């Protein structure tokens, strides 16, 4: 009798807690199985980890500073300078290593910020419905109908942070480019999350919460948000590659962050004047390609694992 009473509230969480935790070897084997099942995703993850490592430890990896002039101009790749030197005599390898910092930092911050805002707007749009939803969705339509690069150019050129950045004591160039890229992220995330919220809000748990008198923000953030969070993270991963490309394109067009080593800017410098030096254009662009490739491969793998129906849908 007492045994049964004790058994009744036995939950899945208790059962999980009661299981012996797997040994380190078993965990590594499980990780190995996952990696074998998703070889491309694993390559992507390794590429990203490599570039993140490079960005974090850039000053210790790069043999020279970004502005240092250790060699003669336009040297070919060799043992002294692995990727050669550029037109000013700077070490291309060092500039590629140091350039990873801006690309990754700007991309991560703007995608996380933009996706959070996009999720917020998407949840509000999907949950409230009616005219609020219509206005938000028409605005999203507009943003999607619009060439993203042109929007980015207009924002970066109009310098919206000329004054606010001085008040807030932040770097205006970073603030502008992150703001612009965040705006580029928002519409896509909003659309996807709104769709998910529309199907979530008809679930019984929402009705149950409402019937016990929970008010809307509580339902949204305690109940609906956790259910669409995974989706938001998936979309975020798949957007990172595109945002790195966008940042590089802006830098290439001369609207990036001035003064710092940047992959896009370096490709632009390399094409400016005769005589051209192929390594100076090749290596920074190859770094962009491999980073974007890493994020795209990882994003695909995560999406396949999370939702097999979306497989190869891009």
């Amino acid at each position: 009798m007492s045994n049964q009473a004790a058994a009744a509230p036995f939950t899945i969480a208790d059962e999980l807690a009661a299981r012996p935790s797997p040994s380190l070897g078993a965990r590594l084997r499980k990780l190995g199985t996952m990696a074998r099942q998703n070889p491309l995703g694993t390559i992507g993850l390794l590429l990203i980890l490599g570039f993140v490592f490079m960005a974090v430890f850039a000053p210790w990896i790069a043999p020279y500073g970004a502005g240092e002039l250790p060699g003669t101009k336009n040297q070919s790749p060799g043992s002294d300078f692995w990727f050669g030197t550029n037109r000013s005599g700077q070490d291309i390898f060092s500039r590629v290593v140091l350039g990873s910092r801006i690309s990754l930092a700007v991309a991560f911050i703007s995608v996380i910020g933009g996706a959070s805002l996009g999720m917020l707007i998407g949840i509000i749009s999907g949950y409230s419905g009616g005219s609020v939803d219509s206005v938000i969705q028409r605005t999203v339509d507009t943003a999607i109908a619009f060439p993203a690069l042109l929007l980015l150019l207009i924002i970066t050129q109009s310098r919206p942070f000329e004054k606010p950045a001085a008040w807030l004591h932040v770097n205006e160039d970073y603030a502008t480019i992150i703001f612009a890229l965040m705006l580029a992220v928002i519409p896509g995330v909003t659309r996807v999350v709104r769709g998910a919220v529309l199907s979530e809000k008809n679930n019984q748990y929402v009705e149950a919460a409402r019937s016990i008198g929970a008010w809307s923000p509580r339902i949204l953030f305690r109940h609906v948000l956790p259910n669409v969070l995974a989706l938001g993270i998936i979309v975020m991963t798949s957007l990172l590659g595109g945002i790195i490309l966008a940042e590089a394109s802006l830098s290439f067009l001369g609207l990036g962050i001035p003064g710092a080593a940047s992959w896009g800017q370096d490709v632009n410098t390399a094409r400016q004047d005769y005589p051209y030096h192929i390594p100076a254009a090749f290596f920074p662009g190859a770094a962009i390609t491999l980073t974007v490739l890493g994020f795209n491969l990882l994003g695909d793998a995560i999406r396949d694992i999370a939702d097999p129906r979306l497989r190869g849908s891009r």
Partner: protein
Amino acid sequence: MQTFIIRRLLIGVVILFILSVTVFFLLRVVPGDPAIRRCGLGCTEEQLAAIREELGLNKSYAAQYWDWMSGVLTGDLGQANFTGRPVSESIQQRLPVTLELMLLAMIFTILIGIPFGVISAVFRNTPADYLVRVVAVFGLAVPVFWVATLVLIIPLEVWGYAPPLGVKISPIEDPWGNFKQMAPAAAVLAIASAAGIMRLMRSSLLEVMRQDYMRTARAKGLKERSVILAHGLKNSLIPVITVLGLQISGLLGGAIIVEQIFNLPGLGDYTFRALFANEFEVVQTMTLYAGATVVIINLIVDVSYAWLDPRIRYS
């Protein structure tokens, strides 16, 4: 069908209105005075006032918006200071270049994306499929500006070859010269869209190949070739065409970069230079035109569904 088209056109007008207001305010309400930026440091108050007067910046926002919109609607776009010519004249000269670039890029996208996507699906999990998929994954990762730069400087450094640059070659008077000028730019522009179409075509055709009517077609003894081409391909084209329509806005953005690098005198280059010259009205107008192009093409795409899949009816 008619009501559908009319409703979509009305939504399109709403979208363009939101777009025009957004761009108008993005360029004006931001902190920082365009007149000061235009005039430079050490500018006198009188000079500033004159510039504000000339740009119409001393009027209210509503009046400025009205001036601009009525100009756009009547086709009177005024003069552009950075070229010293009427805007409509520049558009007339430059539109054919961008139009040809877009058209060629679309043709490349279709000619490369669809056949290779079909090959990838039909021969799935063979070396051919893996090759197409690897190429597509790389195609989505390479920056347009990087490939364009390499396409220009590698032939020049290695063989001393450069495509004709900087001059406008008429496709009627010198078709081959025009092709030599436009094809590399259009091919580079098409890389990402072709890669996207390859992947989409593959997954869409694989989805269709699982359908019952494909089994029926095989069961009644059709050759595999006609099963794929007649029954499979047409049914799997719907998502592909949707995405082709959506890619237009990406191509328009890419045109800005490609026209810069290949020195093509098109509208992307014009917009870019107007932006740097702080010619707001020109940027606004070009933005609106770009938006209108996208809206119209997506409407055409939606209407074409009815042809591709007769089950789709619009009401």
